[in-house]
Protein backbone atom coordinates (compact mmCIF):
# COMPACT_ATOMS: atom_id res chain seq x y z
CA UNK A 1 0.00 0.00 0.00
CA UNK A 2 1.18 3.45 -0.75
CA UNK A 3 1.82 5.24 2.47
CA UNK A 4 1.86 8.57 0.74
CA UNK A 5 -1.82 8.39 0.16
CA UNK A 6 -4.22 7.34 2.85
CA UNK A 7 -7.43 8.52 1.36
CA UNK A 8 -10.48 8.66 3.51
CA UNK A 9 -13.06 6.44 1.92
CA UNK A 10 -15.73 8.38 3.72
CA UNK A 11 -15.04 11.29 1.40
CA UNK A 12 -17.45 9.57 -0.89
CA UNK A 13 -20.74 8.38 0.44
CA UNK A 14 -20.74 4.73 1.40
CA UNK A 15 -23.89 2.66 1.55
CA UNK A 16 -24.58 -0.92 2.51
CA UNK A 17 -27.96 -2.35 1.75
CA UNK A 18 -29.33 -5.56 3.14
CA UNK A 19 -32.61 -6.40 4.83
CA UNK A 20 -30.91 -8.58 7.40
CA UNK A 21 -28.88 -5.84 9.03
CA UNK A 22 -29.57 -5.56 12.74
CA UNK A 23 -28.90 -2.77 15.22
CA UNK A 24 -25.41 -3.98 16.00
CA UNK A 25 -24.61 -4.04 12.29
CA UNK A 26 -26.01 -0.59 11.74
CA UNK A 27 -24.02 0.87 14.61
CA UNK A 28 -20.91 -0.94 13.47
CA UNK A 29 -21.27 0.25 9.89
CA UNK A 30 -21.95 3.73 11.12
CA UNK A 31 -18.65 3.66 12.98
CA UNK A 32 -17.05 3.00 9.59
CA UNK A 33 -18.90 5.94 8.06
CA UNK A 34 -21.10 3.57 6.14
CA UNK A 35 -24.79 4.27 5.94
CA UNK A 36 -26.83 1.10 6.41
CA UNK A 37 -30.04 0.57 4.50
CA UNK A 38 -32.42 -2.25 5.17
CA UNK A 39 -34.87 -1.41 2.42
CA UNK A 40 -34.34 -1.11 -1.32
CA UNK A 41 -33.50 2.57 -1.26
CA UNK A 42 -29.94 2.01 -2.42
CA UNK A 43 -31.16 0.86 -5.81
CA UNK A 44 -32.49 4.31 -6.52
CA UNK A 45 -29.07 5.77 -5.70
CA UNK A 46 -27.41 3.89 -8.52
CA UNK A 47 -26.36 6.30 -11.22
CA UNK A 48 -23.33 7.26 -13.24
CA UNK A 49 -21.68 8.57 -10.07
CA UNK A 50 -21.84 5.25 -8.28
CA UNK A 51 -19.61 2.28 -7.89
CA UNK A 52 -21.73 -0.76 -7.09
CA UNK A 53 -20.23 -3.67 -5.23
CA UNK A 54 -22.55 -6.66 -5.29
CA UNK A 55 -20.56 -9.86 -5.12
CA UNK A 56 -22.65 -13.02 -5.17
CA UNK A 57 -25.77 -11.01 -5.70
CA UNK A 58 -27.80 -13.09 -8.09
CA UNK A 59 -27.71 -11.53 -11.55
CA UNK A 60 -31.31 -12.50 -12.15
CA UNK A 61 -32.16 -10.22 -9.27
CA UNK A 62 -30.18 -7.22 -10.47
CA UNK A 63 -32.30 -4.10 -10.42
CA UNK A 64 -32.84 -2.34 -13.71
CA UNK A 65 -30.34 0.33 -12.72
CA UNK A 66 -27.65 -2.31 -12.77
CA UNK A 67 -28.92 -4.18 -15.80
CA UNK A 68 -28.96 -0.98 -17.78
CA UNK A 69 -25.45 -0.13 -16.71
CA UNK A 70 -26.34 3.09 -14.99
CA UNK A 71 -23.55 2.65 -12.49
CA UNK A 72 -20.09 3.79 -13.43
CA UNK A 73 -18.62 0.56 -12.27
CA UNK A 74 -20.19 -2.68 -11.14
CA UNK A 75 -18.39 -5.39 -9.28
CA UNK A 76 -20.64 -8.38 -9.25
CA UNK A 77 -21.45 -11.85 -10.41
CA UNK A 78 -20.73 -13.17 -13.83
CA UNK A 79 -23.56 -12.11 -16.14
CA UNK A 80 -22.81 -14.45 -18.98
CA UNK A 81 -24.14 -17.70 -17.48
CA UNK A 82 -27.59 -16.17 -17.24
CA UNK A 83 -27.53 -15.42 -20.94
CA UNK A 84 -26.12 -18.83 -21.71
CA UNK A 85 -28.88 -20.56 -19.83
CA UNK A 86 -30.87 -21.70 -22.82
CA UNK A 87 -33.53 -23.23 -20.65
CA UNK A 88 -34.19 -19.96 -18.93
CA UNK A 89 -34.10 -17.87 -22.07
CA UNK A 90 -36.45 -20.29 -23.75
CA UNK A 91 -38.83 -20.07 -20.83
CA UNK A 92 -38.69 -16.30 -20.98
CA UNK A 93 -39.49 -16.37 -24.69
CA UNK A 94 -42.43 -18.67 -24.14
CA UNK A 95 -43.70 -16.54 -21.37
CA UNK A 96 -43.46 -13.48 -23.55
CA UNK A 97 -45.35 -15.31 -26.26
CA UNK A 98 -48.18 -16.04 -23.85
CA UNK A 99 -48.12 -12.54 -22.46
CA UNK A 100 -48.32 -11.05 -25.92
CA UNK A 101 -51.10 -13.43 -26.78
CA UNK A 102 -53.05 -12.45 -23.71
CA UNK A 103 -52.03 -8.81 -23.89
CA UNK A 104 -50.61 -8.90 -20.40
CA UNK A 105 -47.03 -8.05 -21.17
CA UNK A 106 -45.50 -5.27 -19.15
CA UNK A 107 -41.91 -4.27 -19.40
CA UNK A 108 -39.78 -5.49 -16.55
CA UNK A 109 -38.84 -2.99 -13.94
CA UNK A 110 -36.35 -3.12 -11.15
CA UNK A 111 -39.03 -4.40 -8.87
CA UNK A 112 -40.29 -7.17 -11.09
CA UNK A 113 -37.24 -9.28 -11.67
CA UNK A 114 -38.41 -12.81 -11.66
CA UNK A 115 -36.96 -16.25 -11.31
CA UNK A 116 -37.56 -16.66 -14.99
CA UNK A 117 -36.51 -13.16 -16.02
CA UNK A 118 -38.63 -11.10 -18.27
CA UNK A 119 -37.37 -11.16 -21.81
CA UNK A 120 -36.70 -7.44 -21.54
CA UNK A 121 -34.47 -8.06 -18.56
CA UNK A 122 -32.56 -10.68 -20.50
CA UNK A 123 -32.18 -8.26 -23.41
CA UNK A 124 -30.91 -5.63 -21.02
CA UNK A 125 -28.36 -8.04 -19.65
CA UNK A 126 -27.31 -8.95 -23.17
CA UNK A 127 -26.91 -5.30 -23.93
CA UNK A 128 -25.01 -4.88 -20.71
CA UNK A 129 -22.48 -7.51 -21.74
CA UNK A 130 -22.02 -5.89 -25.12
CA UNK A 131 -21.45 -2.44 -23.73
CA UNK A 132 -19.22 -3.34 -20.84
CA UNK A 133 -15.76 -4.67 -20.51
CA UNK A 134 -15.14 -7.17 -17.79
CA UNK A 135 -12.31 -8.58 -15.79
CA UNK A 136 -12.55 -11.42 -13.36
CA UNK A 137 -11.42 -10.48 -9.88
CA UNK A 138 -8.46 -12.28 -8.42
CA UNK A 139 -9.03 -14.83 -5.74
CA UNK A 140 -7.94 -14.37 -2.17
CA UNK A 141 -5.45 -16.88 -0.93
CA UNK A 142 -6.81 -17.80 2.48
CA UNK A 143 -9.07 -20.79 2.93
CA UNK A 144 -11.92 -18.84 4.38
CA UNK A 145 -11.89 -16.17 1.74
CA UNK A 146 -11.00 -18.33 -1.20
CA UNK A 147 -14.55 -18.22 -2.47
CA UNK A 148 -15.04 -14.54 -1.68
CA UNK A 149 -14.64 -13.45 -5.29
CA UNK A 150 -15.70 -16.59 -7.11
CA UNK A 151 -17.05 -15.65 -10.51
CA UNK A 152 -16.92 -12.01 -9.58
CA UNK A 153 -16.16 -9.47 -12.26
CA UNK A 154 -15.41 -5.80 -12.55
CA UNK A 155 -17.62 -4.31 -15.24
CA UNK A 156 -17.11 -0.93 -16.80
CA UNK A 157 -18.37 0.65 -19.93
CA UNK A 158 -16.39 0.46 -23.10
CA UNK A 159 -14.84 3.65 -24.39
CA UNK A 160 -17.32 3.94 -27.19
CA UNK A 161 -20.26 3.55 -24.87
CA UNK A 162 -18.86 5.99 -22.40
CA UNK A 163 -18.38 8.63 -24.98
Amino acid at each position, binding site marked *: *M*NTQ*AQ*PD*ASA*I*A*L*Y*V*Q*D*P*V*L*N*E*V*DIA*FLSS*LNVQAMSN*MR*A*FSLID*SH*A*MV*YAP*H*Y*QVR*GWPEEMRRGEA*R*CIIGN*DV*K*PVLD*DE*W*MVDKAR*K*RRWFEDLLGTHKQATART*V*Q*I*IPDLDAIDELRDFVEKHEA*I*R*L*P*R*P*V*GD*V*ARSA*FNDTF*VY*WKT*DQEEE
Partner: protein
Amino acid sequence: MLNAREYHLKVVSEGNDTRHWPLFSESETDIKRPTSDYRDCDLHPLTNLKLPTSAAFNLLLLHALPMPHTSSRRREVKDQLHPTKLSHEVDDDGWSHVVRKSSAPSYVKSHTQSTQSTDITRIHVDFTEQLTPAQVDFLRRNIPRHALKSTEIRPRAAIYSPEELQKRFGQVQTAWSQDTVVQRLRAVLTRVGVAPTADKEHANKEESLHKDELDSKDADERPVHDEASVGHAVDVTNQLNDLSLKAETSRPIPEESTESGQAYSGLDKAICIGLGSPSADTSAWEKNVLWQLVAFLEMAKICMYRIYHSPRPIML
Protein backbone atom coordinates in the same frame (compact mmCIF):
# COMPACT_ATOMS: atom_id res chain seq x y z
CA MET B 1 -33.22 -23.27 14.42
CA LEU B 2 -36.15 -23.65 12.10
CA ASN B 3 -39.29 -24.87 13.68
CA ALA B 4 -40.78 -25.85 10.38
CA ARG B 5 -44.23 -26.05 11.83
CA GLU B 6 -44.24 -22.29 12.03
CA TYR B 7 -43.32 -21.53 8.48
CA HIS B 8 -45.44 -21.43 5.42
CA LEU B 9 -44.09 -21.24 1.94
CA LYS B 10 -46.71 -20.22 -0.53
CA VAL B 11 -45.77 -20.83 -4.10
CA VAL B 12 -47.72 -19.05 -6.78
CA SER B 13 -47.13 -20.35 -10.23
CA GLU B 14 -48.29 -19.07 -13.54
CA GLY B 15 -51.89 -19.47 -14.49
CA ASN B 16 -53.16 -18.54 -11.06
CA ASP B 17 -52.38 -22.03 -9.89
CA THR B 18 -51.74 -21.27 -6.28
CA ARG B 19 -50.36 -23.86 -3.98
CA HIS B 20 -49.71 -23.50 -0.32
CA TRP B 21 -47.27 -25.60 1.52
CA PRO B 22 -47.08 -25.10 5.23
CA LEU B 23 -43.90 -26.76 6.20
CA PHE B 24 -43.51 -28.91 9.17
CA SER B 25 -41.73 -31.94 10.38
CA GLU B 26 -42.29 -34.35 13.15
CA SER B 27 -39.53 -33.04 15.34
CA GLU B 28 -36.53 -30.83 15.24
CA THR B 29 -34.24 -33.79 15.31
CA ASP B 30 -35.96 -35.11 12.27
CA ILE B 31 -35.06 -32.15 10.15
CA LYS B 32 -31.42 -32.28 11.06
CA ARG B 33 -29.15 -33.56 8.41
CA PRO B 34 -25.41 -33.81 8.05
CA THR B 35 -24.07 -30.43 7.14
CA SER B 36 -21.88 -32.02 4.54
CA ASP B 37 -24.89 -32.88 2.42
CA TYR B 38 -24.60 -29.92 0.16
CA ARG B 39 -21.32 -28.45 1.12
CA ASP B 40 -19.56 -29.63 -1.97
CA CYS B 41 -22.37 -29.13 -4.37
CA ASP B 42 -20.95 -26.00 -5.85
CA LEU B 43 -23.39 -25.55 -8.64
CA HIS B 44 -26.58 -25.56 -6.74
CA PRO B 45 -27.95 -22.79 -4.57
CA LEU B 46 -28.53 -25.30 -1.85
CA THR B 47 -24.78 -25.37 -1.48
CA ASN B 48 -24.79 -22.69 1.07
CA LEU B 49 -27.51 -24.00 3.26
CA LYS B 50 -25.25 -26.01 5.49
CA LEU B 51 -27.86 -26.00 8.12
CA PRO B 52 -30.47 -28.22 9.55
CA THR B 53 -33.45 -27.78 7.35
CA SER B 54 -36.36 -29.91 6.39
CA ALA B 55 -36.41 -31.98 3.28
CA ALA B 56 -39.74 -30.35 2.56
CA PHE B 57 -38.20 -26.93 2.60
CA ASN B 58 -35.53 -28.07 0.22
CA LEU B 59 -38.07 -29.72 -1.99
CA LEU B 60 -40.10 -26.57 -2.31
CA LEU B 61 -37.08 -24.53 -3.12
CA LEU B 62 -36.02 -27.14 -5.57
CA HIS B 63 -39.31 -26.67 -7.36
CA ALA B 64 -38.75 -23.01 -7.64
CA LEU B 65 -35.10 -22.83 -8.45
CA PRO B 66 -33.14 -23.94 -11.47
CA MET B 67 -31.42 -27.22 -11.08
CA PRO B 68 -27.67 -27.61 -11.40
CA HIS B 69 -26.47 -27.59 -14.92
CA THR B 70 -24.47 -30.76 -14.78
CA SER B 71 -26.32 -34.03 -14.74
CA SER B 72 -24.15 -35.53 -12.04
CA ARG B 73 -24.84 -32.64 -9.69
CA ARG B 74 -28.50 -32.74 -10.61
CA ARG B 75 -28.64 -36.41 -9.76
CA GLU B 76 -26.87 -35.75 -6.53
CA VAL B 77 -29.38 -33.15 -5.43
CA LYS B 78 -32.31 -35.19 -6.61
CA ASP B 79 -31.08 -38.15 -4.66
CA GLN B 80 -30.95 -36.04 -1.57
CA LEU B 81 -34.51 -34.97 -2.06
CA HIS B 82 -35.93 -38.11 -3.52
CA PRO B 83 -39.72 -38.18 -3.24
CA THR B 84 -39.64 -41.56 -1.63
CA LYS B 85 -38.18 -39.86 1.39
CA LEU B 86 -41.06 -37.44 1.51
CA SER B 87 -44.73 -37.60 2.08
CA HIS B 88 -47.38 -35.27 0.87
CA GLU B 89 -50.66 -34.74 2.65
CA VAL B 90 -53.51 -32.32 2.35
CA ASP B 91 -55.13 -31.02 5.51
CA ASP B 92 -58.72 -30.00 6.12
CA ASP B 93 -58.03 -26.47 5.04
CA GLY B 94 -56.71 -27.60 1.73
CA TRP B 95 -53.10 -26.91 2.59
CA SER B 96 -50.55 -29.34 1.32
CA HIS B 97 -48.07 -30.67 3.79
CA VAL B 98 -44.81 -32.17 2.77
CA VAL B 99 -43.21 -34.25 5.43
CA ARG B 100 -40.21 -36.41 5.53
CA LYS B 101 -41.00 -40.06 5.87
CA SER B 102 -39.48 -43.32 4.92
CA SER B 103 -41.92 -43.79 2.10
CA ALA B 104 -44.25 -41.59 0.16
CA PRO B 105 -47.24 -41.93 -2.07
CA SER B 106 -46.39 -42.16 -5.72
CA TYR B 107 -48.24 -38.98 -6.55
CA VAL B 108 -45.62 -36.99 -4.73
CA LYS B 109 -43.13 -38.11 -7.25
CA SER B 110 -45.28 -37.17 -10.19
CA HIS B 111 -46.13 -33.91 -8.54
CA THR B 112 -42.46 -33.18 -8.14
CA GLN B 113 -41.77 -33.89 -11.74
CA SER B 114 -44.61 -31.78 -12.99
CA THR B 115 -43.78 -28.76 -10.90
CA GLN B 116 -40.21 -28.79 -12.07
CA SER B 117 -41.42 -28.08 -15.54
CA THR B 118 -43.74 -25.33 -14.39
CA ASP B 119 -42.86 -21.72 -14.77
CA ILE B 120 -43.03 -20.49 -11.26
CA THR B 121 -42.82 -16.79 -11.49
CA ARG B 122 -43.59 -15.67 -8.01
CA ILE B 123 -42.75 -16.99 -4.64
CA HIS B 124 -44.29 -15.66 -1.52
CA VAL B 125 -42.61 -16.70 1.63
CA ASP B 126 -44.50 -16.11 4.81
CA PHE B 127 -42.52 -16.65 7.92
CA THR B 128 -44.13 -16.27 11.25
CA GLU B 129 -40.90 -16.41 13.12
CA GLN B 130 -37.38 -15.53 12.38
CA LEU B 131 -35.38 -17.92 10.29
CA THR B 132 -31.89 -18.95 11.06
CA PRO B 133 -29.31 -16.60 9.58
CA ALA B 134 -28.24 -19.18 7.04
CA GLN B 135 -31.78 -19.73 5.88
CA VAL B 136 -32.41 -16.04 5.50
CA ASP B 137 -29.15 -15.75 3.69
CA PHE B 138 -30.14 -18.54 1.38
CA LEU B 139 -33.51 -17.00 0.62
CA ARG B 140 -32.00 -13.60 0.16
CA ARG B 141 -29.52 -14.92 -2.33
CA ASN B 142 -31.85 -17.12 -4.25
CA ILE B 143 -35.30 -15.69 -4.31
CA PRO B 144 -35.93 -12.46 -6.17
CA ARG B 145 -36.48 -9.76 -3.67
CA HIS B 146 -39.74 -8.68 -5.24
CA ALA B 147 -41.14 -11.99 -4.18
CA LEU B 148 -40.38 -11.30 -0.59
CA LYS B 149 -42.18 -8.69 1.37
CA SER B 150 -39.77 -6.39 3.06
CA THR B 151 -41.04 -7.52 6.41
CA GLU B 152 -40.43 -11.13 5.58
CA ILE B 153 -36.70 -10.96 5.59
CA ARG B 154 -36.01 -9.63 8.97
CA PRO B 155 -32.85 -8.44 10.63
CA ARG B 156 -30.81 -11.27 11.95
CA ALA B 157 -30.24 -11.62 15.62
CA ALA B 158 -26.74 -10.49 16.43
CA ILE B 159 -24.48 -13.27 17.56
CA TYR B 160 -21.47 -11.12 18.23
CA SER B 161 -21.37 -8.19 20.58
CA PRO B 162 -20.10 -4.87 19.24
CA GLU B 163 -16.75 -5.56 20.86
CA GLU B 164 -16.49 -9.05 19.42
CA LEU B 165 -17.55 -7.76 16.05
CA GLN B 166 -14.90 -5.08 16.14
CA LYS B 167 -12.32 -7.69 17.10
CA ARG B 168 -13.32 -9.98 14.23
CA PHE B 169 -13.27 -7.08 11.85
CA GLY B 170 -9.76 -6.25 12.95
CA GLN B 171 -8.71 -9.85 12.36
CA VAL B 172 -10.09 -9.80 8.86
CA GLN B 173 -8.44 -6.49 8.12
CA THR B 174 -5.15 -7.96 9.22
CA ALA B 175 -5.71 -11.00 7.07
CA TRP B 176 -6.47 -8.72 4.15
CA SER B 177 -3.25 -6.86 4.59
CA GLN B 178 -1.41 -10.17 4.44
CA ASP B 179 -3.31 -11.47 1.48
CA THR B 180 -1.90 -10.67 -1.89
CA VAL B 181 -5.40 -10.16 -3.15
CA VAL B 182 -5.12 -6.57 -2.01
CA GLN B 183 -2.22 -6.00 -4.34
CA ARG B 184 -3.90 -7.89 -7.12
CA LEU B 185 -7.13 -6.03 -6.59
CA ARG B 186 -5.32 -2.77 -6.72
CA ALA B 187 -3.53 -3.87 -9.85
CA VAL B 188 -6.82 -4.73 -11.51
CA LEU B 189 -8.46 -1.49 -10.53
CA THR B 190 -5.38 0.44 -11.50
CA ARG B 191 -5.54 -0.92 -14.98
CA VAL B 192 -9.20 -0.28 -15.50
CA GLY B 193 -8.66 3.29 -14.46
CA VAL B 194 -9.83 3.44 -10.88
CA ALA B 195 -6.60 3.14 -8.97
CA PRO B 196 -3.84 5.73 -9.17
CA THR B 197 -1.82 6.19 -12.27
CA ALA B 198 -0.28 9.54 -11.47
CA ASP B 199 2.01 7.72 -9.14
CA LYS B 200 3.48 5.62 -11.90
CA GLU B 201 6.23 4.20 -9.81
CA HIS B 202 3.73 2.89 -7.35
CA ALA B 203 1.46 1.57 -10.05
CA ASN B 204 4.33 -0.19 -11.77
CA LYS B 205 5.44 -1.67 -8.51
CA GLU B 206 2.02 -3.08 -7.87
CA GLU B 207 1.75 -4.35 -11.38
CA SER B 208 5.06 -6.04 -10.90
CA LEU B 209 3.80 -7.53 -7.65
CA HIS B 210 0.77 -8.78 -9.45
CA LYS B 211 2.81 -10.40 -12.17
CA ASP B 212 5.35 -11.83 -9.79
CA GLU B 213 2.65 -13.40 -7.79
CA LEU B 214 0.98 -14.88 -10.81
CA ASP B 215 4.27 -16.27 -11.97
CA SER B 216 5.05 -17.77 -8.62
CA LYS B 217 1.76 -19.54 -8.22
CA ASP B 218 0.82 -22.98 -9.33
CA ALA B 219 -1.55 -23.12 -12.22
CA ASP B 220 -4.54 -23.92 -10.05
CA GLU B 221 -3.83 -20.95 -7.85
CA ARG B 222 -4.01 -18.46 -10.63
CA PRO B 223 -7.03 -16.36 -11.39
CA VAL B 224 -9.33 -18.29 -13.64
CA HIS B 225 -9.48 -17.38 -17.31
CA ASP B 226 -11.99 -19.90 -18.36
CA GLU B 227 -12.74 -18.56 -21.78
CA ALA B 228 -14.60 -21.65 -22.76
CA SER B 229 -17.22 -21.32 -20.08
CA VAL B 230 -17.09 -17.57 -19.67
CA GLY B 231 -16.94 -16.04 -23.08
CA HIS B 232 -16.09 -12.57 -22.00
CA ALA B 233 -13.47 -13.55 -19.50
CA VAL B 234 -10.17 -12.46 -20.83
CA ASP B 235 -6.60 -12.74 -19.91
CA VAL B 236 -6.32 -10.24 -17.14
CA THR B 237 -2.78 -9.15 -17.75
CA ASN B 238 -3.17 -8.65 -21.47
CA GLN B 239 -6.43 -6.82 -21.23
CA LEU B 240 -5.19 -4.69 -18.43
CA ASN B 241 -2.17 -3.72 -20.45
CA ASP B 242 -4.41 -2.70 -23.31
CA LEU B 243 -6.61 -0.73 -21.02
CA SER B 244 -3.74 1.08 -19.48
CA LEU B 245 -2.52 2.07 -22.90
CA LYS B 246 -5.94 3.33 -23.84
CA ALA B 247 -6.23 5.24 -20.64
CA GLU B 248 -2.90 6.91 -21.10
CA THR B 249 -3.45 7.92 -24.68
CA SER B 250 -7.10 8.58 -25.18
CA ARG B 251 -8.22 10.36 -22.08
CA PRO B 252 -8.29 14.12 -22.08
CA ILE B 253 -7.06 15.88 -19.01
CA PRO B 254 -9.74 18.28 -17.87
CA GLU B 255 -8.61 21.81 -17.25
CA GLU B 256 -10.25 21.86 -13.90
CA SER B 257 -8.35 18.85 -12.71
CA THR B 258 -6.85 19.45 -9.33
CA GLU B 259 -5.43 17.51 -6.51
CA SER B 260 -8.87 16.72 -5.25
CA GLY B 261 -10.23 15.95 -8.66
CA GLN B 262 -13.60 15.08 -7.30
CA ALA B 263 -15.43 17.56 -9.45
CA TYR B 264 -14.70 15.83 -12.69
CA SER B 265 -14.32 12.29 -11.52
CA GLY B 266 -18.00 12.19 -10.86
CA LEU B 267 -17.75 9.25 -8.53
CA ASP B 268 -19.48 10.30 -5.37
CA LYS B 269 -20.77 7.10 -3.84
CA ALA B 270 -20.03 3.45 -3.37
CA ILE B 271 -22.91 1.08 -2.78
CA CYS B 272 -22.63 -2.42 -1.45
CA ILE B 273 -25.68 -4.55 -2.11
CA GLY B 274 -26.43 -7.77 -0.31
CA LEU B 275 -23.60 -7.73 2.16
CA GLY B 276 -25.22 -9.84 4.84
CA SER B 277 -25.08 -9.27 8.54
CA PRO B 278 -21.58 -8.79 9.96
CA SER B 279 -22.71 -9.51 13.49
CA ALA B 280 -24.68 -12.64 12.64
CA ASP B 281 -22.53 -14.33 10.09
CA THR B 282 -22.63 -17.99 10.92
CA SER B 283 -22.78 -19.18 7.37
CA ALA B 284 -20.49 -21.72 5.82
CA TRP B 285 -18.35 -18.81 4.78
CA GLU B 286 -17.65 -17.65 8.24
CA LYS B 287 -16.20 -14.18 8.17
CA ASN B 288 -17.05 -13.95 4.52
CA VAL B 289 -19.34 -11.03 5.20
CA LEU B 290 -16.50 -9.21 6.89
CA TRP B 291 -14.23 -10.08 4.01
CA GLN B 292 -16.70 -8.55 1.64
CA LEU B 293 -17.03 -5.50 3.82
CA VAL B 294 -13.28 -5.00 3.95
CA ALA B 295 -13.12 -5.48 0.19
CA PHE B 296 -15.84 -2.91 -0.29
CA LEU B 297 -14.09 -0.37 1.91
CA GLU B 298 -10.80 -1.11 0.21
CA MET B 299 -12.29 -0.53 -3.21
CA ALA B 300 -13.87 2.70 -2.07
CA LYS B 301 -10.50 3.74 -0.72
CA ILE B 302 -8.84 2.88 -3.99
CA CYS B 303 -11.41 4.95 -5.82
CA MET B 304 -10.72 7.86 -3.55
CA TYR B 305 -7.03 7.48 -4.05
CA ARG B 306 -7.58 7.66 -7.74
CA ILE B 307 -9.76 10.70 -7.42
CA TYR B 308 -7.30 12.56 -5.28
CA HIS B 309 -4.11 11.72 -7.06
CA SER B 310 -4.69 11.34 -10.73
CA PRO B 311 -5.24 14.21 -13.08
CA ARG B 312 -7.15 11.93 -15.40
CA PRO B 313 -10.85 11.38 -15.09
CA ILE B 314 -11.85 7.97 -13.92
CA MET B 315 -12.04 5.77 -16.92
CA LEU B 316 -14.85 3.60 -15.71
